[in-house]
């Protein structure tokens, strides 16, 4: 949702390919596919794959970007747990505008969907 709003505010052509998976391109975001793959490797905790991707990010964008990207991804291990553990509902006014995005990204099968919309 904020990716869409941020893109609109910057007149950027953002798509949601890199959110859904890392095989579909950058989605209009610089290094989008690479950052998406980094997120997957952090999630899967595959040491070899993660080491390789960290090298790729440093080579493509620098060590600062690697550290900041890992920090943002790690932050969402906090935010998702807070939302899912407290029954946080979707914010008023976001259900309808984000419906198409949620369908595109493929999150409608999650258990947390039913809880967030309860």
């Amino acid at each position, binding site marked *: 949702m*904020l990716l869409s709003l941020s893109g609109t505010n910057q007149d950027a052509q953002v798509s949601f390919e890199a959110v859904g998976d890392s095989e579909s391109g950058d989605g209009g975001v610089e290094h989008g596919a690479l950052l998406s793959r980094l*997120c997957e490797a952090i999630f899967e905790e595959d040491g070899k794959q993660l080491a390789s991707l*960290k090298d790729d990010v440093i080579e493509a964008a620098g060590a600062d970007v690697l*550290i*900041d990207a*890992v920090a943002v991804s790690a932050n969402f291990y906090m935010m998702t747990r807070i*939302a899912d553990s407290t029954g946080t*509902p979707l914010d008023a006014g976001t259900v309808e505008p984000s419906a198409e995005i949620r369908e595109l990204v493929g999150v409608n099968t999650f258990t*947390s969907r039913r809880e967030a919309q*309860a």
Partner: protein
Amino acid sequence: MAAYSTELPIRVDLDEAHTEIAARWAATGSWWSGLERLAIVEEVRRARDSAEIAPWESPSEIAGLVSDGHVLPEAAIDAIWRVTNHPGTLTAEWHASILGRGVHAEAYVELVAVVAQANAVDRFADALNLDRVELPEPSVSEPAKTSGVSLQVTSHWVPTAKIKGPNVLKALSAVPFENESLSLLSSVQYVRLGDLLSDLVSNQNSLSRLQVELIAARTSKLNECFY
């Protein structure tokens, strides 16, 4: 003292924030003592480092996983493991079952906050092959175990205070100290929460806001979080 010893160019504000968060874990909470709060963090680490158990299995029911005389009640330990390893499977019924086993509704909020913070801080260290943040000595004073704010169960499973902002920021409002910790971590690892919706274009350190939101969305999807 620095949180991390590494040649990687970790920002000073990020390193200092993780040191401060560890100190806050060791502080006396509203509902849990410093000793108990550090035990929550240690249990998050055990949950992450152990062979994964299925969502429907509880560590308290598996022989050898929970030591006799543990400082935390079994319901709290079961909640810590489930929130850490299977957050996308949580339901209102599960939440009610944890409260039904004796965990106070506001103590649950504080527990969730510490669990969530520990997942963020440790995930950062693990992904960069850093030693996890060292845990300080716990505060020895006892928690007051009283509500400091007026609360109601309305929009969330948990009691919340009337505060402005997105629902995810309201989630921890029963324990203001934990909302401060959330704000501290978010400001160095994501965006300053006050700027969440008001500034959607500024770069965040070395990342563009688009890159930040892509990483946020991709990670949320991997964790199967619909919110």
